[in-house]
C-alpha cells in the first residue's frame, strides 16, 4: 500500500480535513494544527504496514495516531503554553474559515451570523481551557461524532470513563462560557 501513490493520495484527500479539525480544536492554533496534521500523515505513511484491519476501523486507527501526537505535543508545549483569558484576541485561525461562512446562509440575518461566529470563537477559546482529557473526549464526541466505543478505543479507557469525561467536559465548558458572559455583562 505504501507504494501505491494514488491510494495514498486518496487517503490524504479523504482524511486531512478531519485530522486538521481535530488538531485545530485541540491545539487551538491554525499553525500548530497544520504542523500536527502533517506530522500525523508522516507517521501514518511510515506505519501504514502496521495497520491491522481486524483490530479496528481505519478511521479509529488514524484518530489514535492523531490523539497520541496531540498528547505528545501537549506535553512538549506544556511549559510554553499561553495563559490568556477568554477575553483575549479572537481565534488566530486565519486560513481556516468556517464552512458556514464559506457557504453564505442567505436565510440567516447578518447579526445572527456575527453572533454565531462570536459564539464559535468563544467556544473554541473555552475549549482550550479544559483539561486535555476532557477536551479530547468532547472533541471526539461532539465535534467528530465518534461513538463511545470508538472513543474508548482511541483513548484506551473504559466506555464509562469516556461518558463521564464527555459530560464533565460539557459542563465545564458551559460554566466557563457562563462565567465569561457574566463578566462581560
Amino acid at each position, binding site marked *: 500500500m505504501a507504494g501505491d501513490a494514488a491510494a*495514498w493520495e486518496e487517503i490524504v484527500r479523504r482524511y*486531512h480535513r478531519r485530522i486538521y479539525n481535530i488538531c485545530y480544536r485541540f491545539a487551538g492554533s491554525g499553525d500548530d494544527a497544520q504542523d500536527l496534521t502533517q506530522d500525523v500523515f508522516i507517521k501514518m505513511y511510515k506505519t501504514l504496514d502496521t495497520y491491522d484491519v481486524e483490530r479496528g476501523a481505519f478511521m479509529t486507527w488514524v484518530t489514535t495516531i492523531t490523539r497520541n501526537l496531540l498528547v505528545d505535543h501537549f506535553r512538549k508545549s506544556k511549559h510554553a503554553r499561553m495563559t490568556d483569558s477568554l477575553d483575549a484576541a479572537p481565534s488566530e485561525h486565519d486560513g481556516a474559515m468556517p464552512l*458556514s461562512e464559506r457557504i453564505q446562509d442567505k436565510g440567516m440575518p447578518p447579526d445572527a451570523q456575527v453572533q454565531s461566529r462570536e459564539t464559535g470563537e468563544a467556544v473554541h477559546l473555552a*475549549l482550550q481551557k479544559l483539561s486535555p482529557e476532557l477536551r479530547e473526549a468532547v472533541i471526539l464526541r461532539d465535534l467528530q461524532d465518534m461513538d463511545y466505543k470508538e472513543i474508548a478505543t482511541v483513548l484506551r479507557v473504559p466506555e464509562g470513563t469516556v461518558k463521564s469525561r464527555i*459530560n464533565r*467536559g*460539557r459542563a465545564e465548558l*458551559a460554566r466557563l462560557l457562563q462565567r465569561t458572559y457574566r463578566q462581560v455583562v
Partner: protein
Amino acid sequence: MPGETKDGMPCLEFDALLTEALDGTLGGERLERFQAHARACSACGPLFAEIDAGRRLLKSITEVEPPAHLAYNILAATSGLDTVRMHAPMAQPQVSWLDRVRARIAPALTPVFAVVRQPRFAMSFGMAFFSVSMVLNLAGVKVSDLRHVDLHPSAMVRGYHMTSGKVVKYYENIRFVYQIESKVREIKRATTPAEPAPQKDQPRKDNSNTSEQPDQRQERNYSQGENQPVLASTPDVPPVAPVTATGRFV
C-alpha cells in the same frame, strides 16, 4: 448530593442515564423518572442543564476549512509528489545549464540585487543615464546611429587607425598654421621701422595743472587687464556701476 427523590431514582442512576438522555435514546418510564428527578433535585437538575448547554454550544461550532496547500504539503512531505493524478503524466522538468548556472551564482548576486532594488540606486542610475544622454545629445551622437556601427574586430581596427590618422593630420595642420603665423609675425617685425625714442625735454602743455591726475589715471588703466572692469568715473561724479571692457555690467 441528595440520595433519592420521591420518584425513587437515586442521583447515581440519574448520572448513569445522563448520556442516554442527552443522546435522545432514553424513553418511556425511565425518561419520565429522569425528568422528574431533574426537576426535583437541586444538584442534578442544574448539572443536567449545564451539560446540555455545553453540548449545544459544542454542536454549534462549525468545521473549519484547512488551508488549500495542506494536502499538497502532506503529499510532498510523505510521498514526495505534489499530486499523482494531476501531475503523473507530466515528466520531470529538465533543468537547463543556464538555470544551473543561475542557481550557482544566485547566492553571490543576491546582495547585489538587494542594493540595486533600493530606490536610492535607481535614482542614481536615472541621473547617470540622464547625464550620459545629455552629453551624447550635445556631442551630436545619435543612439540610432550606433546600430549601424560595424563591431567586427577588423572593422574596429580599421576605425581605430582612421581615427588616429585624422587626429595626426589635424595636429599636423594646426602645427603648419602656427608655423606660418609665427613666420608672418617675424616678417612683420623685421619690416616695421624702430619707433623713435620719447623726447625727454619736451615742455608740458599745461603747467598750471599740478594735480597730475590724468597721468595717474592713464597709468592705472595700463595696469588693468583686458577683462578687468573700467570705471566710468569722472572727478566730480561718483561711479554708478562697474562696467567691463566689453561693456557688460558687473
